[in-house]
C-alpha cells in the first residue's frame, strides 16, 4: 500500500514504521507523502485509538535524504510542499501519537519525534540537531516544539551546537518520556501504546487540543476552553462509564467515545 513505510494495526494501535533501513530511514518526497497519508488514515480509522511512529532497522530517521538535494533545490518550497503538511497532520491528529525512537533521530527525523505527543526511547536512541553541520536551520517544527519541551536556553544550545544527545541525556532534558533497555523496548512501547488505546480517547483529544492552544492564549480564553472541553467530555459515554465504575468499585472499560 505504501512504498516507504509499513502500516499495521495491532490491538487498536496503528504502527507506522519508516521502512528505508539501508538509509537509516532518511526522508524522500515519497516518504513525506506516505507518512502524511498513513497518519491521516490512522486518524480517521475508528478502530485505531493510538498511533506509534517508529523506524525499521538501526535508525529512527536520519532526516532529509541528502542524495535528493541539489543546487537548484528551493529548500523553502520543499518544506511547504512536503514537510509542513506532514507535521500539520500530526499536529492536528486527535489521537495520542508516540514516537518510538529506536535509534538515531537526526535533523528532520528529530523534528518528526518532537511533533509527537510522547517519545519512548530505546537506550540506543539519540537525537542530533544535524542541520547546523550543513549550514542549515532546524525545520519542520523543530524550533517550535523544542523550546516548549526543554526550555529556550537548552533548545538554543542543541540547535546551534548540534551535539549528539544520548537517550539518557534526552531523558534528563525532558525530551524523552521513557528510556528502555533495547531488548525490552519494543514490548514496553507496545504496552504503553495499548494502555493509551484503552483510555478515554475523546478526553485525550481534548487535553491535547487545549494544552496546545494554551501556548498562545490568555488565561481567560483558556478558562473558556476548559468549559467547552468539559461540556464535550461530560457528554461522552466514557465519562459515564468512569463514574459508574468508580461507584461500583470496578475497573472502567472505555470505548473511546
Amino acid at each position, binding site marked *: 500500500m505504501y512504498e516507504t513505510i509499513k502500516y499495521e494495526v495491532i490491538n487498536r494501535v496503528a504502527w507506522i514504521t519508516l521502512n528505508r533501513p539501508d538509509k537509516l530511514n532518511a526522508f524522500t518526497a515519497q516518504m513525506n507523502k506516505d507518512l502524511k497519508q498513513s497518519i491521516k488514515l490512522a486518524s480517521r480509522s475508528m478502530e485505531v485509538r493510538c498511533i506509534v511512529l517508529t523506524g525499521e532497522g538501526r535508525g529512527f530517521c536520519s532526516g532529509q535524504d541528502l542524495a535528493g538535494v541539489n543546487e537548484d533545490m528551493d529548500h523553502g518550497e520543499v518544506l511547504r510542499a512536503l514537510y509542513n503538511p506532514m507535521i500539520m497532520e500530526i499536529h492536528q491528529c486527535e489521537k495520542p501519537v508516540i514516537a518510538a525512537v529506536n535509534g538515531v533521530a537526526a535533523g528532520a527525523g528529530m523534528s518528526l519525534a518532537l511533533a509527537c505527543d510522547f517519545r519512548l526511547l530505546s537506550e540506543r536512541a539519540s537525537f542530533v540537531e544535524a542541520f547546523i553541520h550543513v549550514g542549515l536551520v532546524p525545520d519542520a517544527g523543530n524550533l517550535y516544539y523544542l523550546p516548549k519541551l526543554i526550555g529556550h536556553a537548552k533548545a538554543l544550545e542543541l540547535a546551534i551546537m548540534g551535539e549528539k544527545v544520548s537517550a539518557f541525556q534526552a531523558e534528563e532534558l525532558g525530551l524523552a518520556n521513557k528510556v528502555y533497555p533495547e531488548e525490552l523496548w519494543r514490548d514496553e512501547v507496545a504496552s504503553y501504546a495499548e494502555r493509551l488505546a484503552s483510555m478515554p480517547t475523546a478526553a485525550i483529544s481534548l487535553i491535547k*487540543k487545549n494544552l496546545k492552544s494554551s501556548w498562545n492564549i490568555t488565561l481567560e480564553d483558556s478558562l473558556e476552553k476548559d468549559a*467547552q*472541553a468539559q*461540556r*464535550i467530555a461530560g*457528554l461522552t459515554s466514557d465519562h459515564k462509564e468512569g463514574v459508574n465504575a468508580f461507584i461500583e468499585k470496578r475497573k472502567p472499560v472505555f470505548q473511546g467515545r
Partner: protein
Amino acid sequence: MSRIYEYIHTSSEGHVGIISLNRPEVLNALNRTMIVEILSAMESFDQDENIRVILLSGNGRAFAAGADIQEMANDSAIDFELLDQFKNWDRIAAIKKPIIGAVQGFALGGGFELALCCDMVYAADDAEFGFPEVDLGVMPGAGGTQRLTKLVGKTKAMEWLFTGKRITSGEALHYGIVNRIFAKEILMEETLKAAAKIASQAPLSIRLIKESVLKAVDTTLNEGMHFERKNFYLLFSSEDQKEGMSAFREKRKPEFKGK
C-alpha cells in the same frame, strides 16, 4: 408550520427558527432549488409572529461546500441574465429578523456567500472559508466580492479572491468574518443559546437595529445618522419601549411582546 422541502430541513426551538441545509452527501453544495427553498423558509419565518431569530446551519460535515457546478457548467451568459437567479439572494438580504449562521467544515464559494448573508456567524474550529471560483475561471456572483470587501477591507479581500486560498476559523475570527469559535461538538448548542438570547430581547429593537446596521454598511454617515434617528423615534411608539423602561424603573425583568 413546518413545510416539506427537498434540500433543507426546518424546525423551531422556542422563538428560534432553524434552517438546516440538508444535502450532506454532497457537503450541502447549493443548487438553485435549494436557494429558493432557503429563501422561502426565511420569508416564512420572517412573517411568523412566533419566530424572532433565524438560525442557518448545515447538516453533516460541512456548512456548504460551494455551488452545484454541474448545474451551471453549460449555461451561457444570457441564460444567467434571463434566469436572474441572484435576485433570490437580494431577497435573502431583505430578511428583517436576525440571521445567525452556524458554520462547521467548508463554507466555500456560494456557501461562503451564504455565510456572509448572516448577521452573525458562530463557527466550529474546523470551519474553512474561501472563494475557489477563480480556479474555475469565474468569480463569485452572489455578493462575494462585495460583502467580503465591506467586511474585511480591500487588501485582504483581493488576496483571498485572487488566490482562492482557504481562510481558517482563526483567521476568520481575526478579520471579523465570524463572531466566535467553538469545538464542532458544541457549535449547534452554543449557537442556539446565542440565538435564544437575542430572541429574548425586544423584537422590534432587534429588527430596527438590524435595519440600521445594514444601512450603515451601505450609505453615507450623514444619511445613516438620519436613518438611525427615525428608527430610534419609531421605537418610542411601541409598547415594548414603555414596558422596557417601566421594568427598568421598577427593577424587574421586562416582558417584551414585539408590539
